[in-house]
């Protein structure tokens, strides 16, 4: 157990790619936490997908021992948090477990939207904040300008910002000193009854559920019987450890310390992030305030391309859900797609990560249907129904009005692209709330309907600004609007997986765009195919996919018979990847691509 004054707990907040993972690697390396030969890049990003995409999905932590210039050795606990907006809520929770933050800003780029979103969370959590200007090795680095920007836009003092290059290692010792000198030590009475925060939990194939904790008061020891105050469950502790970043057993953890425990907990779902852990016998009187569990906001259907793989899909989804309490699922049947699951996610990235993992780790090819948000459908009889799937839209005569979720979006963009960004936001039914400048960048704040953002807003934003804009959002609540369900009919038959909720004023435009897209996505058939968008029974857009005109092999002589026969067999196999709707084969990628908007 370490004396409180010799502990510093912190997190790193940064916009994506500003160097958070690289800095963490350097801190770990410089303090010899990991032997040089075990050093690999992005140590804290553990899953393949995290490494590949350069994102952190779950919180992670590492305990670093640092002999400071004052001759004392300090324990530094770094909690690494996800940087992506989908996981913003988890970030805010992890921040409650530490006292300070390093605010890393790329000195060649400046403040970005995620810098803002994350730093405000740190401020909300009452953190002491140390600004760090990274990438000073780059010729484009401009520390003065960026320091000024931090002061102007964020409103914190940046005169003592630490200038570093996480890549070359320059300035890393200064960062360590700043952590010790400028961040506050934690506080807490070691003789009080145990009070620890459940920071996060995950499933480890060898150890079962692992729980990350931060001790606030009292002492926790291996073998103690603990109680989770919200769930009222009690467990004996099997193992107590710290992460360096691999697990290293420890006998006890006192106030201010961060570590992990295992306690034969069956499922991640049995734990509540933010829960208070205390001793079964000697309980703390006041629980921590706790957190609302993260709620899925985006829903879509996942169907196996091959109907025979439904059970495999169920198995994969159940396994993934074990480790991810924010991911929800229930069985869904679709007239066209057969059996599958309606799944809920924290955002689109979360959706993609889960979908990728199912396809990659479980080798199940999926058809993903149109993502939808949760609508509040207020019925004439005064009741309210949550609508997760446009296919379930109740009879219109029973509906009084519909509300949709809104977000507050913050976008930072160079002046040159401001016009394009404003147009994009207006087109997506946005209401401008704020527009300010910081140097040559504009900061725009928009109130937007989530359903206009969920699908491809970020892609569009990146493309209209050539990647120079940054974006972040938070949910703000529900508002009534004129929303309708739009159906798509292919060859006169409705395809339920293509139904979407859309604002009435945007329906014609969306309908036309979808019909045009589908016309390109569906291959020509031997007959012509009408593709229509309709509201209720009324057709609002229509395209016709003309019949195939030419599909014949030019040369077929004696020697070609055998080869051609094989080709026909191959075609047959290719057809299995399509779904038949009536007589029409729709390729699997059409379901998502049809929804993408070019403008």
């Amino acid at each position, binding site marked *: 157990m370490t004396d409180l004054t010799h502990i510093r707990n912190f997190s790193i907040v940064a916009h994506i790619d500003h160097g958070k993972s690289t800095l963490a690697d350097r801190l770990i390396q410089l303090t010899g936490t990991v032997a040089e030969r075990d050093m690999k890049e992005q140590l804290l990003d553990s899953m393949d997908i995290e490494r590949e995409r350069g994102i952190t999905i779950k919180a992670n932590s590492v305990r670093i021992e640092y002999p400071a210039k004052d001759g004392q050795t300090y324990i530094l606990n770094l909690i690494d948090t996800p940087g992506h907006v989908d996981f913003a809520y988890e970030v805010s929770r992890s921040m409650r477990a530490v006292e300070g933050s390093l605010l890393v800003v790329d000195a060649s780029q400046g403040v970005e939207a995620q810098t803002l979103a994350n730093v405000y969370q740190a401020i909300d959590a009452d953190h002491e904040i140390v600004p760090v200007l990274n990438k000073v090795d780059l010729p484009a680095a401009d520390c003065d300008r960026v320091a000024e920007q931090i002061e102007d836009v964020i409103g914190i003092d940046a005169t003592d910002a630490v200038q570093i290059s996480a890549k070359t290692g320059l300035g890393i010792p200064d960062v360590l000193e700043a952590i010790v000198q400028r961040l506050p030590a934690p506080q807490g009475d070691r003789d009080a009854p145990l009070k620890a925060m459940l920071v996060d939990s995950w499933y480890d194939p060898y150890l079962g559920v692992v729980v990350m904790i931060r001790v606030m008061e009292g002492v926790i020891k291996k073998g103690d019987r603990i109680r989770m105050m919200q769930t009222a469950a009690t467990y004996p502790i099997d193992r107590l450890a710290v992460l360096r970043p691999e697990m290293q057993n420890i006998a006890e953890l006192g106030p201010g310390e961060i570590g992990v425990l295992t306690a034969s907990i069956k499922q991640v779902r049995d734990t509540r992030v933010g829960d208070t852990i205390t001793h079964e016998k000697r309980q703390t009187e006041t629980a921590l305030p706790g957190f609302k569990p993260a709620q899925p906001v985006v829903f879509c259907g996942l169907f196996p391309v091959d109907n025979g793989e439904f059970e495999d899909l169920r198995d994969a989804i159940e396994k993934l859900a074990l480790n991810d309490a924010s991911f929800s699922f229930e069985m869904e049947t679709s007239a066209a797609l057969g059996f599958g699951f309606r799944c809920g996610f924290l955002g689109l990235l979360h959706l993609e990560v889960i979908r990728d993992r199912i396809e990659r780790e479980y080798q199940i090819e999926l058809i993903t249907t149109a993502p939808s948000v949760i609508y509040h459908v207020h019925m004439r009889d005064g009741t309210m129904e949550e609508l997760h799937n446009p296919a379930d839209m109740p009879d219109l005569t029973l509906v009084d009005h519909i509300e949709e979720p809104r977000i507050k979006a913050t976008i930072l963009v160079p002046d040159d692209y401001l016009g394009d960004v404003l147009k994009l936001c207006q087109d997506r039914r946005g209401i401008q709330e704020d527009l300010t400048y910081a140097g040559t960048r504009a900061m725009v704040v928009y109130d937007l309907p989530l359903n206009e953002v969920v699908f491809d807003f970020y892609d569009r934003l990146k493309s209209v600004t050539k990647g120079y804009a940054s974006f972040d959002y938070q949910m703000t609540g529900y508002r009534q609007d004129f929303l309708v369900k739009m159906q798509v009919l292919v060859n006169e038959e409705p395809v339920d997986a293509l139904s979407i909720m859309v604002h009435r004023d945007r329906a014609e435009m969306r309908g036309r765009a979808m019909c045009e897209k589908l016309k390109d996505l569906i291959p020509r058939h031997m007959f012509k195919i009408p593709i229509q968008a309709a509201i209720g029974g009324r057709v609002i857009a229509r395209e016709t996919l003309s019949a*195939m005109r*030419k599909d*014949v092999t*030019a040369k*077929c002589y*004696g*020697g070609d*018979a*055998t080869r051609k026969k094989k080709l*026909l067999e191959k075609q047959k196999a290719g057809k299995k990847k399509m779904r038949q709707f009536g007589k029409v084969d729709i390729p699997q990628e059409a379901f998502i691509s049809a929804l993408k908007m070019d403008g």
Partner: protein
Amino acid sequence: MADQGFGLYLHWPFCQAKCPYCDFNSHVVAQIDQTAWAEAYGQQIEYFGELTKGRILNSVYFGGGTPSLMDVAVVDAVLDKIRATWSLANDIEVTLEANPTSVEADRFRDYRMAGVNRVSMGIQALRDADLRALGRLHSVSEALAAFDIARRIFDRVSFDLIYARQDQSLAAWEAELTEALALSADHLSLYQLTIEDGTAFADRFNAGKLRGLPAEDLSADMYELTQNLCEASGLPSYEVSNHAAHGAQSQHNLIYWRGGDWVGIGPGAHGRLTMADGRHGTQTDLSPQIWLEHCRQDPARPTYWEPILPAGHLTERLMMGLRLNEGVVLDNNFRRQINSCKVKYLLELGLLCEKNDRLITTRKGRLVLNSVLSELLAD
């Protein structure tokens, strides 16, 4: 199958240069031991003769490769051996494929003396720039001169053109085809350029460097135009890519499309033979050297046999027969096997029709034959 004719295909696997679009079994070599090839062919003819005793031969086809590179002595020896092995039909067709670069009047007269009575020439294009783009060794004027020689010597001369080439417009093809028809051959094979796997064109195409190929609609328009022009000039189509004056159809190729029997000799040659124990497909070693070597070791060695089961036979009959304007005969056996729901559906779509107990593709249907087949043959 005897009533559909009986033919012999003989593959000559050598060319002067490899064309970038070509996926035929053709090779460029420094030297060819023509005597060795003549011997091997002769021995193979004996081998197959034993197995098809008593049958009457309707056609012989020297295909390639470039068979016009064969010494006259080889062609002569092969045809002698054939005459010694089978009885020949009175109207036997003996075709030799020729490249314009290897047409010489004297040699062609000798081929005729040896028994060749029909020549099929690979002219490919009547535009010099396009011939170069196709990697051909001849020019338009050389092709025309060669055609002239051939026609003076042979009663029956056909030639091949490749169209739907890079950057070819409908109007440009119309002009070119009109010139081709003015040459008044009695038979034309008009192929749309196909990008075949494993060719130099395929590599370029996959790298995005082979541009200007027609999209589906233009290629359909070109095809329609071809049908109309040829028909108006007295060379109506009788198969997807083949056109002939009345009575001038290639008897040899009709054997393939009508489901007849033929012997396939030479590297990579295929055959179909109906024996006491049913129909069989034959295939041979692809490599010229291996084929030759295997022939030397044992006449049976270069050929691989595989029975063709009723389902496979149905597939082949539809695949080949529906290419012909005359369609396939719907005998009772066939009616039992074929999926009548699918047939009905395709009849309704106007892609197939039934006439005099034959199943026939309509003009529209023939143009989308691959899709018609995959519908007909789907489970």
